[in-house]
C-alpha cells in the first residue's frame, strides 16, 4: 500500500494541521511516512504545498515524483490546479471551492471550478460554508480532511485520534469542533464518491 498526497493552499490556511493529523494517524497504523513542507518566505500569503507520503514499505524520496500522487487535497480551488502535473491520471482531486483572493488578478472562479470539474476523479465542496454551518468557521481545513478521508486508506478512528492529538492542546471545545467539521466533510465525500 502506498498513498502519495499533495496538500495545497495559501500560507496560513492550515495545511500543516492537515498534514500533521494524517501523520499522527499513519504512525498509529505503523506506516512509513515522509512529509515535506514549505517554511519561510512563501508562508506570507503565497502558494504553499506539502508532499505527504504514506506506505507500508520504506519510502525513499521526500518528494513525490511527477504523475505519482494518488491525491491532491487542496483548501483553495485555484491552488488545487497548480500541482496537476504531480497527480496520477487515475488520482483524485479533492478541493475546497471557496476562493482565497489575496491577489489582484485572481481568475474568474467559474472558470477555475470548470477546470476542477473537467477532471474524471474529483470531489469539490464549499468547505468554508460547511465549516460555518457546523459552527466553526476556522475548521474548513479539517472539513477538507474529512472529505479526503474515504480515499486515504486510513481507518477513520485513527484520523479522529489524530485530530484529538493535534488539537488537544487547544482544549476540548476546539477538538470537538474539528471532529464535527471532519464528519461533515466526510459525509459530503461519501455521498459524492
Amino acid at each position, binding site marked *: 500500500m502506498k498513498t502519495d498526497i499533495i496538500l495545497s493552499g*495559501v*500560507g496560513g490556511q492550515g495545511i500543516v494541521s492537515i498534514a500533521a493529523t494524517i*501523520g*499522527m494517524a499513519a*504512525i498509529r497504523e505503523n506506516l*512509513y*511516512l*515522509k*512529509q*515535506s*513542507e*514549505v*517554511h*519561510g*518566505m*512563501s*508562508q*506570507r*500569503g*503565497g*502558494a504553499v504545498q506539502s*508532499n505527504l507520503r504514506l506506505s507500508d514499505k520504506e*519510502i*525513499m*524520496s*521526500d*518528494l513525490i*515524483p*511527477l*504523475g*505519482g*500522487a494518488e491525491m491532491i487535497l487542496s483548501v483553495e480551488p*485555484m*491552488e488545487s*490546479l*497548480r*500541482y*496537476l*502535473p*504531480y*497527480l*496520477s*491520471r487515475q*488520482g483524485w482531486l479533492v478541493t475546497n471551492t471557496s476562493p482565497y483572493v*489575496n*491577489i*489582484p*488578478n*485572481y*481568475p*474568474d472562479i467559474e*472558470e*477555475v471550478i470548470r*477546470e476542477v470539474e473537467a*477532471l474524471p476523479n474529483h470531489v469539490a465542496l464549499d468547505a468554508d460554508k460547511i465549516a460555518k454551518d457546523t459552527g466553526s468557521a476556522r475548521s474548513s481545513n479539517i472539513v477538507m480532511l474529512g472529505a479526503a478521508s474515504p480515499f486515504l486508506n486510513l481507518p477513520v478512528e485513527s484520523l479522529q485520534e489524530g485530530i484529538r492529538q493535534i488539537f488537544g492542546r487547544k482544549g476540548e471545545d476546539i477538538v470537538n469542533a474539528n471532529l464535527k467539521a471532519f464528519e461533515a466533510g466526510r459525509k459530503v465525500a461519501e455521498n459524492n464518491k
Partner: protein
Amino acid sequence: MQTLLLMGDEAIAQGGLDAGISGIYAYPGTPSTEIMEYVQMSKMAKEGNVFSNWSANEKTAMEAALGMSYAGKRSIVCMKHVGLNVAADPFINSAVTGVNGGMVVAVADDPSMHSSQNEQDSRFYGKFALLPVLEPSSQQEAYEMTYKGFELSEKYQVPVLLRLTTRLAHSRSGVERLERREQNKIRLPEDPRQFVLLPAIARKRYKVLLSHQKGFESESEQSPYNAYFPGQDKSTGFIVCGLAYNYLMENFVNRELKNPLLKICQYPLPRKLVEQIASECEQLLVIEDGYPIVEEMLKGFLEKGIKVKGRLDGTLPRDGEMTPDHVANALGFTVNKGKDVPSVVTGRPPSMCKGCSHIDMYNSLNEALEPYGEGRVFSDIGCYTLGALEPFNAINSCVDMGASVTMAKGAADAGLCPSVAVIGDSTFTHSGITGLLDCVNDGSPVTIIISDNSTTAMTGGQTSSGTGRIDEICRGVGADPSHVKVINPLKKYHDQNTEIIKQELEHKGVSVIIAQRECIQTATRKKKEKKK
C-alpha cells in the same frame, strides 16, 4: 528506543540533546531555524539547563559555541548557508584552533532558493576549512550524524560540519533514538595555547590540522554512511551524495538496480571507494543536491580520466534542487507526468500581511521620495524585502544582511543624494550597526529607515536582539539625537510620518528614522496567548 516523528532540523536538535550538548547558538534563517526552536521547546533541554538563546548573528553564535567548547562542553551552532558567510572567519579559524568539547556546525543550504538569495553549497566551506563534513540522506541519519558527529569532533579535536538541504530540513519522518549521554563537565584545554592563534602557534596548529587529513579520509572510508553497492551492469556507475541517494532509489522502487552504486554522506571523499567504482565502470553519473562539487573533483580540470556525467555536462540541470524527476530524466526513464497546469492558474507570490507596519512605512517613504525620482532605496533581508514587489516597487537592492546601510553610504559617497536605507530591527542588530558607525564617522548624507517590528518576523517571530533599544543603540553609535526620529507607522499618522521623512531626506548628514510598530503576526499571537 522511542520513535519520534521529526523534521530533519528537529532530528538534529534531538541528536544534539541526546549527545549531551550544553548549549546551542544560532541566528534564525530558513531552512535552519527549527533546530534552535526545537531545543527551546524541549523539556529535556530545560531540565538539563541547555543554553538556547538566539545570538545577534551567526558570527557571534559561532564564537560563543567555540567558547563553550573551549570550556570542555559540547556545543552546536546552527545557521542557513549564507549565515556561514557571516561566520566564516571563526569557522575557518576554529579548524586551526581545534576544539576541546565536541562542536558541531549545522548548516542548512537552500538549493532552488526557496527562501534565499543564492544556493551556495556549504560542502565547499568544509573543504576550505579542511574539516570533516557529514551530509545526511534521511531524518534518521540527521539524528545519528549529529550524535556521532560529536564523537568524531572529540576524537580529532576539530569542529564537524553537518550539511543538510531544505528538503530534509523541512521534511518529517520517524526517528529512532540512541542512548542519552550526559553533558560534559567543565575541563580546560590540555594545551593552554591551543586557542592562541599567534602566527608562531597558528603555524603549528595548522600542521596539526593537516596531519589529521589522512585520518578524516579513513573515517570516511569506514563510515557506515558511505556505502558501496556492487552491480552487474558496469556501463555506468552511480555516485550519489546525501539526499540524492533517495532520488536515485525512488526510480528503482519497481525496477531492479543493476549498476554499481556509491552512496556518499561523509567527506572528505572516501578515496578507496571512489577508486573502486571508477575502476569498475566505463563512466560515472554523479548526483548531488547542491553544487556539482564531487562531480567537478572527479572530472578534473583536464578531463583526462574516466567520463563523468552530472550537472556540468547537462545530464542533470546545472542549478536548482535535485528531484526524483531530474534523476529519472538523466536515466532515460519515462516520467508519467500528470495533466498540465491549466492556463487559468496565476502566480501567487508572498506578500506582506494585512496590517503590517512595513506597508505604512513604504507608503510614507514612497510619497516622500516622489520629488527625487526612483532608484535610491537600498534595502535588506526580511519581510520588508517584499517592498520590491507590486504595488510598492519601493526598493532597489537586497544583497546581504546589513548591506542596505553600507550600500546607501557608498551611493551617497558617490554623490547620490538623498540616499536611503530600509532595514529591519533584527537585521540592523545583526549587521547594520557597524555600517551606521561608518556613516556617523564620515557624516554621510544617508537616511536610514529602521522598520522596527520588534521581532525577527520572516523566520516566524523569533527574539530580536535590540527590541526596545533601537533608538538608544543608534544614539550610542553616535547618530545625532536631533536626527534620530521615532515614528509610528499607522495609516492615521501617514501625513506627519511622510513629513518627517521629507525633512530628514533634506538633511545633509546621517538621519535615522525608526518606524516602530510591532509585527502584526507576533502581536496577534501574544493577544491569543493572553486570552488563554
